[in-house]
């Protein structure tokens, strides 16, 4: 009688594993593929080594402007002007205030994870913007007032982006609900606003806010230049948020609406307690996407004369002692934006993946 025994698993034949197999399979499977691989290598060879040379190997990191001998990036310019890139004209002695706000925000994010009590959470959400505003602008509790004209740099970029997203959020939700509403007038007003805003470039809205808006109000009501830009950005962003939230609302099954109704909940109760939490949750990736777009769009405020971090490149390189350092400035600002946007988009992708597994 033949006896069958379980054979131990054998490793794959040597032609099917190892580095060479991987190379052959993925890079050199046929002639066209090999050609493209070589072409790719050539492009990488053209771009990467000079870039590394310029950015790191040949770069100047310390010393003064007069001592530069290397041909690479002169990062001493960034080091010298770092404060201006971060805070603009914000008085140097008061830099601790925006720093503290940043620290508070970090603490806030951590706290949101651990605090369970709903009321404390809401209180924190409401308090944080107020405290941040008081800290940055001053004028209360003996803090020295800092005029908005002095705000600038990355700090201003962050403020514009943060205010844009926070203020546009409730407005966007209201607009989205309006657009989904059965009331024809409310619906058409919402649709009209959303489509109008989405149909024009942000820059025209900013021009409108900076040049036309002041004429809309009576004498004596005047808005700060920054505030006008913020109004423009908020209106702009709310239309986009509205579309994102609408997407979320449409994805909620009809049964959920009916369930809320059958519990005897009114419109607002049903919306706030049943529909919106679900709709917002599934819209998170798109909301983050929309926030990334907003963050990139904040650069436009430089066209209406606010000094955000990108505007700082022009400003710092027009210092007669530091002429001709634009490349370093642009590369530095590019890295800032890239790091922030890339990490946010990775976050949004991870959230998306998390949702995908739940279904």
């Amino acid at each position: 009688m033949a006896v069958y025994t379980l054979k131990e698993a054998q490793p794959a034949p040597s032609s099917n594993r190892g580095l060479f197999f991987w190379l052959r399979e993925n890079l050199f499977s046929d002639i066209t593929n090999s050609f493209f691989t070589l072409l790719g290598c050539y492009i990488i060879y053209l771009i990467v080594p000079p870039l590394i040379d310029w950015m790191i190997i040949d770069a100047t990191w310390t010393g003064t402007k007069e001592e530069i001998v290397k041909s690479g990036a002169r990062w001493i310019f960034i080091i010298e002007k770092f404060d201006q890139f971060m805070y603009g004209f914000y008085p140097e002695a008061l830099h601790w205030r925006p720093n503290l706000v940043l620290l508070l925000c970090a603490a806030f994010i951590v706290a949101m994870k651990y605090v369970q009590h709903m009321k404390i959470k809401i209180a924190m959400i409401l308090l944080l913007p107020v405290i941040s505003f008081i800290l940055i602008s001053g004028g209360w509790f003996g803090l020295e007032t800092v005029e908005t004209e002095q705000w600038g740099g990355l700090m201003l970029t962050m403020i514009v982006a943060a205010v844009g997203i926070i203020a546009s959020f409730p407005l966007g939700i209201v607009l989205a609900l309006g657009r989904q509403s059965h009331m024809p007038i409310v619906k058409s007003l919402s649709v009209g606003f959303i489509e109008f805003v989405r149909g024009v470039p942000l820059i025209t809205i900013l021009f409108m806010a900076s040049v036309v808006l002041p004429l809309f109000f009576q004498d004596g009501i005047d808005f700060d230049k920054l505030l006008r830009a913020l109004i423009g950005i908020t209106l702009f962003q709310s239309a986009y948020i509205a579309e994102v939230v609408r997407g979320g609302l449409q994805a909620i099954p009809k049964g959920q609406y009916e369930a809320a109704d059958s519990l005897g909940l009114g419109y607002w109760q049903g919306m706030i307690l049943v529909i919106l939490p679900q709709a917002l949750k599934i819209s998170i990736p798109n909301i983050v996407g929309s926030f990334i777009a907003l963050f990139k769009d904040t650069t436009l405020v430089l066209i209406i004369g606010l000094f955000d971090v990108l505007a700082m490149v022009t400003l710092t390189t027009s210092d007669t002692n530091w002429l001709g350092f634009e490349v370093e400035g642009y590369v530095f600002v590019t890295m800032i934006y890239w790091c922030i946007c890339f990490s946010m988009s990775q976050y949004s992708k991870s959230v998306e993946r998390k949702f995908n597994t739940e279904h």
Partner: protein
Amino acid sequence: MKFTKIALLLSSTALLPNLASAGTLEQVLEKGIVSCGVSTGIPGFSSADSKGVWEGLDVDFCRSVAAAVLGSADKVKYIPLTAKERFTALQSGEVDLLSRTTTWTATRDTSLGLNFAGVNYYDGQGFLVNKKLGITSAKELNGATFCIQAGTTTELNLTDYFKSTGMEYKAVTYDTSGQTIDGFKKGRCDAVTSDASQLYGLRLKMDDPNSVMVLPEIISKEPLGPAVRQGDDAWFNIVRWTLFASLEAEELGVTSSNVDAMLKSKNPSVMRLLGTTGTAGENLGLKANWAYTIVKEVGNYAESFDKHVGKDSPLGISRGFNKLWNQGGLMYPMPIR
């Protein structure tokens, strides 16, 4: 509806709400600060250093008005404005005074709802070229490309000049003067054209200021002056006479260093200027020592000029037309009496 909600929401956080319907003078007195529209950076006229401190001839004018009205030259809020924003900012009341190298023209004076209070710098349009081109006169600029700031009188004058001389040109227009000089530095154009005073400032922004030169031709009249809103004569008078006071101070030899001694002067003109006699200040709605405060805190016109654009500044522009009338210039303060 969403619009006001946001507006109210944000303004209730007290960024800058203030309601008043009184004249500009009352508003300024109530706020305790003069909002002054300046440029986003024109060396010598209004520019901020890296600490955000504003200085320049136009800035000194803002300071003079603050000194006259509020008794302190530091009570000024500088609002940097692009060329596009400047008129709306004034029309809408965002600034009380526009002191931003603005050329006085008929269109601006009549159709934009503003009034020019005087001229604090007589300028003209010139050309800045690279010495390498080997040009010595604007007549040789046929076919050249020019960098210009968009929406300025300069842009229109250039067309007129080339039309009248029968030459051709190409124009590259930029939004700000910073971009304009950048374009020139990069060789995007052969020449920059702007108010001659600005060209001297732009020259200093070059890597090597000696590689470029300002051509001798002046192709236009550019009277630059402060502007205020139309329809507020009291404020208009204050701004206009602030300008005259600093010129008058120069004419009478009153400077920031000798103004205290001059208080004892027996010269009737000096006495009227400094408020020891006469009612000039009172008539303007100001304190009697308004002009004294201007000279004491800011200095007379000559001091401002020399410090920011003239012989004591890196620009080193000669007074030229901006000399007093009795020295062969155009500056002619109306008598204070």
